[in-house]
């Protein structure tokens, strides 16, 4: 589905990605085209090898397409150098990983703060924003705990706070509920839904989790590196 160019945060156009595995070329994406508009709560699903990972890597400015173009807020990522991509990830993209991937030596507070810290946001503003976000994800009182002292669900909530702390254009969430129990998963989805509704944060998930698919406002199904279906629920 192609959105109105003005409201699209992400635009993928005829994107292909070919990996070389030994002597074999693996076509991970085969002309993928779709947009993500501002404020969407979208899930990408599909079987293993359908290209979900590759699509998120490209949108997250972590990788480059073999052909086609990936635009984030109108910027063609293939035209940006290493430093510009780093700045773009810092300022415009939030990441939530399946394995949480918090920095183990930093406290919950510091992990949530780290992106704003590298952005050199004023200390008082950082503090205000982090405390507000940790409260929003239900982690008041746990600010000084390090990741090893938090449960999986708590770590993922810190990761969500970290992802949205700097006000990114989009949050890319990789299987955010894969490593937590169903009750925690429901809670995490609820937190992200609320952030989407109340703060207008745009979420794009890669998921196998039926609960995430059920509650996504839009569900894009990939098969063999291309869009098989694109269902908009709201």
């Amino acid at each position, binding site marked *: 589905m192609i959105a109105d160019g003005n409201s699209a945060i992400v635009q993928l156009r005829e994107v292909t990605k070919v990996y070389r595995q030994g002597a074999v070329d693996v076509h991970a994406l085969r002309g993928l085209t779709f947009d993500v508009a501002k404020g969407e709560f979208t899930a990408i699903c599909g079987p293993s090898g359908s290209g979900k990972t590759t699509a998120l*890597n490209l949108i997250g400015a*972590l990788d480059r397409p073999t052909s086609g173009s990936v635009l984030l807020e109108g910027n063609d990522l293939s035209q940006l150098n290493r430093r510009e991509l780093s700045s773009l990830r810092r300022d415009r993209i939030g990441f939530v990983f399946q394995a949480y991937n918090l920095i183990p030596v930093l406290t919950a507070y510091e992990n949530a703060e780290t992106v704003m810290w590298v952005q050199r946001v004023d200390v008082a503003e950082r503090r205000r924003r982090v405390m507000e976000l940790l409260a929003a994800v239900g982690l008041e009182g746990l600010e000084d705990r390090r990741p090893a002292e938090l449960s999986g669900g708590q770590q993922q909530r810190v990761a969500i706070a970290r992802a949205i702390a700097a006000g990114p254009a989009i949050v890319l969430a990789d299987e955010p509920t894969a490593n937590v129990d169903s009750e925690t998963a429901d809670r995490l989805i609820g937190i992200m839904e609320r952030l989407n509704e109340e703060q207008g944060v745009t979420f794009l998930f890669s998921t196998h989790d039926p609960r995430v698919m059920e509650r996504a406002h839009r569900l894009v199904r990939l098969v063999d590196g291309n869009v098989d279906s694109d269902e908009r629920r709201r």
Partner: protein
Amino acid sequence: MTGRGTSMTVTAWRNLWRNRRRTLLTLSSIAFGVFLAVLFTAMQDRNWTDMINLAARIGAGHVTLQHVEYLDAPRLSKTVQGTDSLRVVALAEPGVTRAVERIAGQMMLNTAWESRGAGFIAVDPDVEDTTTFTVLGAIVEGEPFTSANDGGLILGERLAANLGVELGDKVVYTMTARTGEIVSGLARVSGIVRTGAPSVDGGLSLLPIDAVRTVLGYAPDEATQIAVFVDDQRKADRVAERLQAGVGPGVSAHPWHEIQRELAAFIALKVGGARFMEALIAVLVAAGIFNTLFVSVMERLREFGIMMAIGWSPGRLFRLVVLESAWLGVLGLLSAALITALPYWYLATKGIDVSGITGPTTTEVSGVAMPATFRVGIFPEHAVVIAVAALVATLLAGLYPAWKAGRVDPVETIKLV
């Protein structure tokens, strides 16, 4: 912690303690390396200083004022005049503690039954003591001279034995005067010295300076050298330079290493060897630090990938690892200070008696006996050099791991989805 927020320095500090055992081992290697370097250098600084001071007190001072041709042609005809005013000039220099005039040369010693060639140093007993002339403290028989015109002669123990003389015996000494004429004097053996240095005990004699002046026909303020002593042997070059500018033509000022060339060459050789050893220690320590940091970085590639994904720049990751190595360096130096303090204090104040190793005959270089007790005493600037070198080695060892951290490919390391 929430009050302070994220800090690169704190993050680097915490990273250091993620593998406590590895960090402690690395700190131990830095501390031990610095410990070795400090003691090694301190032993040399003290040893060479002791030897140089001893050489100055046996021979011609830390700086010697003498006739411009005396160094190449040490004859009794090459004298300096106006020694009183030269001494005043020397004593006016900062760092100069003493300045004494002497006549030094070669002579023949003759008894009724034996003749021997020997070196002699004529001294003024009124201004000399053991702080300017160590040999005066090594008199084992007889007495020091009572005046500059004393009719006595002090001989090295072996030289006396070779001449077959004892205290009170008459000896005729023969020298070549400035005219080329052979002149003689008569003296009675008034003292025997035993220094432990074979060249001194077997070949040196002492005479009172005015007696020698009379024999040689010198003026009252004429001598072959003025021995200048400084409070720190490292000032010798600077004092010699300044004196050279102030003493006028016909007189040259030489630092000790131009006079005692054999000793200077010996020390230079030893110092060169020591520098090589220190460099080797530095390389070994740096290799240990490099290994620690490199393994630490390789273990955290995924984490660095995540950090880069969320916006840490390669430069920031580079700085983080460099800061970790800086912490290692600082902590290593503190550990080194802790483990070095007590042994250093002991060796500086008590020392180690090595006479059991060297045996009864003292080893000597250029007439200077090696100290029988090794003590330490590092020059402050050398301690600073070691500390800075350890820090620089630590930082250099961290550069490649830091660069590696900054080159992480997020896709390869985190495999996002």
